[in-house]
């Protein structure tokens, strides 16, 4: 194939219909409060890990809901599960379980892939 000195870029946009939302579904099936988020960002603001690294549950959970799993699959493991986010969430989302389930789902996916 020819090389013209530039490449075709992957679209930045989220293709909702083409994306795989099985991880979000898995989380929701096991933790219904996953749906209650209103993206206030309180969890990210109080986050112990977020104090050191760009870790935002607010961002990661919505990426999962959109099926942008690639962006989440590594970042989600930066959580220390300390649980501060549970205490500040205004909607009573069981944030720790959301993260633990997401981690589990990614691990399972990796295992199945192998």
């Amino acid at each position, binding site marked *: 194939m020819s090389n013209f000195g530039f490449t075709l870029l992957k679209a*930045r*946009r*989220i*293709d*909702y*219909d083409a994306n795989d939302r099985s991880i979000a579904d898995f989380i929701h099936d096991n933790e*219904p409060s996953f*749906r*209650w988020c*209103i*993206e206030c960002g309180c969890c990210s603001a109080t986050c112990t890990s977020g104090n050191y690294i760009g870790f935002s549950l*607010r*961002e990661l959970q*919505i*990426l999962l*809901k*959109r099926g*942008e799993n690639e962006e989440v699959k590594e970042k989600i493991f930066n959580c220390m599960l300390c649980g501060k986010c549970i205490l500040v969430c205004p*909607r009573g989302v069981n944030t720790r379980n959301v993260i633990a389930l997401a981690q589990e789902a990614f691990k399972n996916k990796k295992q199945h892939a192998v």
Partner: protein
Amino acid sequence: MKNKVIVIGGGTAGMEVAGQLAKHDCTVTLLERSAETGGHVRDWYHLFPDRKDSREVINYLENLIRHKSISLFTDTDVNDIVRENDFFVVRTSDGKELQADAIVVSTGFDLFRSERKEEYGYGIYDNVISSADLEKMFRNDEIKLQNGNIPSKIGMVHCVGSRDEKVGNVYCSKLCCVTAVKQAIEIVKRIPEAKVFCFYMDIRMGGALYEELYKEAQQDYGVNFIRGKVSEVSQDIDNKLITKVEDTLTGRPLKIGLDMLVLMAGMEMAESGQKIALSAELDTGENRFFKATDLHYGSNKSNKNGIFYAGTCTAPMNITETISHARAAVIDVIDYLNDRSN
């Protein structure tokens, strides 16, 4: 001799004003442009936040104006209002000349014509409908696409004709958010496997029990909320509505194919009200709604002594607020009449 009051507009506000004035010993003439009283509520199926059937409100209002001191003229447009000494003369489209001691303007609102947001393709794409169209579908109990199929992916576009400089409306219509949520719930109730997506700029759930309804929609009906204003809609080869929006919370553009798109039309000053504003030299504000003398304590008073406002001709309101505003207007009218006779 009884005081005579003319109420222009037989919607929720007008009917409430007429009924309450009649109870307070006034002779009321209620003028309604269309063939029926009831206004927009008649086109609505259920009301938020408790999903009360709108017919209950209509029944209440109809009972209220069934009064010997109220004469109702339907199919009657107002041509102009003239002050003659101590009283007003209202000339109607059918050539009547009516006299009154005071006038209450309750011309209400017009629903934003969704076709004005061209990029959403209302009236062009088969399955782009307005919130009012959806209410009719609820009433007829058939939520169907043009080809007769049941939709399974439905989008609700908030702020159509509200908070939008491009259509000349910078204000928030404030009821569309909760209407969208109410309608989303209603859709999932009828089509349990349907996925509903609300595209919003802000979720404004200021009323009593609105926020609770919002959570219910998330929790029990799985309604998805995507923060971003829909930029454009197009149709693909399978008649899916390809909807483009920025998912502002991921900071990424998002593309989604939907079966049906519901445009949450905002509220605008009624054209009939604007006509009256011109003929009677009533002040209107930047948003084209009637401008009351004071936002805090004079929200029913116009710049013309003896002419009062009630309801959504002054600003977007829900039914509760409209009825309260109408009752407040009645007090202003009675005060005015008392002061005059003293």
